């Protein structure tokens, strides 16, 4: 059955707006730098090439870090793990959270209450603290951090998808399917989920930003990749001491992290606006109202 790929339609619209294009471009640049970085770095990220906190020179274009390693090389090396961890954590968290949310919404009754209450317990911890808790016991293992961040995303995603799924489950076309005797699981898959695409896309965007923030934050606190590995968060912490001598050791990774999160946030915003238009048109009866709606979507 040919289905109109709403995801593509909305993404397409988003990319064509100035906000969407800018956001995607910025985030894309950072991803590019992180991906290609290790291949083009002039030195190894652990090699000592200059004096600690040496100023920018022809030897080290961004100067030296706290141990005299090349800031530029370490910056180029220090992104891809962060990004990968953030991406995986996001994917896991959104998958788990949306599953919980949709099942809770559709089942209703006590199952709904049980799922949502158990998910809420996780909400009693700030994301960072939850991750810290787990790290404190099992050590700063990569898989643990990814898992911890993924779990901490689940409640919020569950809440949002549950609300959206509830709204859809109340609509008459779902009832029409129920009357025919079509089983619940099939209704969820065929009728409810496809209508959740926009909501899910926005959540993915938001969660990706948060994942990056938390993982970089953990790295900053010393609980991510351990030295002597290069990681942007860790670099910011390591090179804080020599901020006055050579700010690049702190500035460069900070700028890259910031650009990535700003880019994803901006693009997600554009996607949210684009999906607003798509969703409304299918439920708005008055043709004249369309005119005033155009002015209202900003």
């Amino acid at each position, binding site marked *: 059955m040919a*289905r*109109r790929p709403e995801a593509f339609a909305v993404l397409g619209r988003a990319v064509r707006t100035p906000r969407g294009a800018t956001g995607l471009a910025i985030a894309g640049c950072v991803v590019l730098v992180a991906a290609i970085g290790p291949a083009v770095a002039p030195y190894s990220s652990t090699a000592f090439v200059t004096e600690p906190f040496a100023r920018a020179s022809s030897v080290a274009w961004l100067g030296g870090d706290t141990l005299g390693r090349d800031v530029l090389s370490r910056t180029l090396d220090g992104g891809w793990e962060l990004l990968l961890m953030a991406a995986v954590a996001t994917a896991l968290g959104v998958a788990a959270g949306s599953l919980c949310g949709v099942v809770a919404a559709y089942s209703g009754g006590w199952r709904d209450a049980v799922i949502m209450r158990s998910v809420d317990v996780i909400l009693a911890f700030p994301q960072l603290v939850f991750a810290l808790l787990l790290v404190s016991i099992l050590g700063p293992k990569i898989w643990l951090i990814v898992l911890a961040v993924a779990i901490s995303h689940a409640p919020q995603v569950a809440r949002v998808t549950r609300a959206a799924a509830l709204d859809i489950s109340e609509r008459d076309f779902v009832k029409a399917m129920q009357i025919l005797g079509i089983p619940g699981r099939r209704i969820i898959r065929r009728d409810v989920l496809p209508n959740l695409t926009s909501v899910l896309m926005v959540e993915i965007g938001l969660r990706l930003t948060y994942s990056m923030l938390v993982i970089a934050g953990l790295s900053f606190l010393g609980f991510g990749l351990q030295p002597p590995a290069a990681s942007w968060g860790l670099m910011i912490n390591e090179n804080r001491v020599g901020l006055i001598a050579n700010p690049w050791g702190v500035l460069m990774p900070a700028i890259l992290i910031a650009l990535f999160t700003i880019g994803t946030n901006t693009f997600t915003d554009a996607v949210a606006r684009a999906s607003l238009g798509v969703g409304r048109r299918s439920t708005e*009866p008055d043709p004249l109202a369309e005119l005033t709606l155009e002015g209202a979507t900003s």
Partner: protein
Amino acid sequence: MTAPSGDIPVVAASETEGTPRLAVENLRILTTPRRGQPDADVVDEISFTVQPGQVLGLVGESGSGKTTVALALLGYFKRGLRPGGGKVLVDGRDILTLPEHELAKLRGRTIAYVPQDPASALNPVLKIGTQLREVFTIHGGDPSRLTDVLAEAGLEDPAPILASYPHQLSGGQQQRVALAMAFACRPRLIVLDEPTTGLDVTTQRRVLDTVRGLCRTYQVAAVYISHDLAVVAEIADQVAVLYAGRLIEVGQAREVFASPAHPYTRGLMRAIPVLEGTYELHGMAGSPPRPGSRPAGCFFQPRCEFAIAECEVRQPDLITVSGTGHAARCVRAVEVAALSGTATLAGARPELPDEEPVLTISGVSVSYTDKPVLQDVNLVVGARQSVAIVGTSGSGKTTLARCVVGLHKDWTGTITFAGQELAPGVRHRTQDQLRRIQFVSQNPYSSLNPRHTVGQIVGTPLAHFAKQQGRKLAGKEHQQKVDDALTSVALRASFAARYPDELSGGERQRVALARALVLDPDLLVCDEVTSALDVSVQAAIVELLLRLQAERGLALLFITHNLPLVRSIADDVTVISAGQICERGPVTRVLTEPSHAYTRQLLADVPAFEHG
């Protein structure tokens, strides 16, 4: 039984002198230009006048621009719209030329507005008292008149109302508060935007009486916007009909309704359900053109049965038809006005076969916690019979429909279908039962999955039932059945590739019908299926249902709150109130000689409309 409408004196335009209270001249409203979209005109060439103490009914279906015109009478334009020419003269003063702060002084004091939906027009976090007192504080009235103003609007016990929040009042009370706010400062002109939509018939009756009384007492000029011609016939002295943003007919109400001079108005007359006598309802094919895609000639020409070559060329001017101010925008206006009677009496309904009843409901009761929703309901739907269930919102009629169809499980009693008892919920019913009872709901905007094409929507039941029976329908066979279903609801087979958001309300409802009919059911349960549609679209759907019933031998359980509609569609009617059956029997008998007090009340409150 007609409600008295003869006490409004018919005032011919020539009788009054001096400046009309309201004079609209060639009003034009455009969309504001946006990136990539040229501006389109929404309404144009709107001209009419209203004298003090007179009510002008502004009639139009959705998309006609009537609300836009209504708001313009207060100098207000929604986001995305702007005035593009013409004048709105109140007591001779053009309000469109006034700056915002001057307009603010006029609004609420000289020109007042009564909204369509008082529930959303009253601020939910402010008490009623605060919102009412505001009008006095801003416009310098006497706040001690607050209680008088409420009493005038029919709210006798003001203190508790003033202390309440809007959500604590009923719909009728909210609307009376809105009326009180509007009449508080004794305005010169009052604009009422469909103020009784959503109210039940009895409340509507009371609100209409109040409006009429207040207008007459204070010699207020009123513009009453509505799509409900029966209501307009009750309350208006003059009528102006809007179509696709143009004024296409204007004149004294009686005259316009008795001898409409424009083919569209004529079409509307033939679509209105009427209590007296059983008439056929006729819809009009096609739909009004949207702003930006209006033809060069007459806008109605594509749908018009009187169209001639000249109609495609240019917009006709308003042509006078009689000396009392009756005019219509049609080159053949005089001809059309002279045509006799618009409505066709319906033929006798077909004889019902002497077969076992399709549906028998006995002793069904439903209660939520301890509040009874349905009490011991008994009902029979014979084979090929059309039974209407009439009641106001909260009467339990929708719950009954949901019980029959299996959406609602907690009921006691028995429902028998084709000789077999039905299990309470869908889960325990047989495939055969599920297939033979089908359902169409009220809201065409939420009954179709926006992510599926029309073809997929109509095809889903087919595929599901084939799978349940262990067969798989061959592609060609499946497609054929889907196409057949679409053609049977008067939609071209090409509709199958479209998505719901490309369709109008009437078209969507047809798709919902097609989905219900594709399995060839024996019983079709229709829950307020035309309530969200314009009157002409409603007529088309009713026509369709009757034809389908005759062709397929379908039994119909038709739920509605619209009493006159019952006359045109049902054999039997059951009147329900507060979960209990008040009266039951053949339509002609119940509606002409009701035996229950509630039925009598309903009939008295329904706005009367007679075909001339």
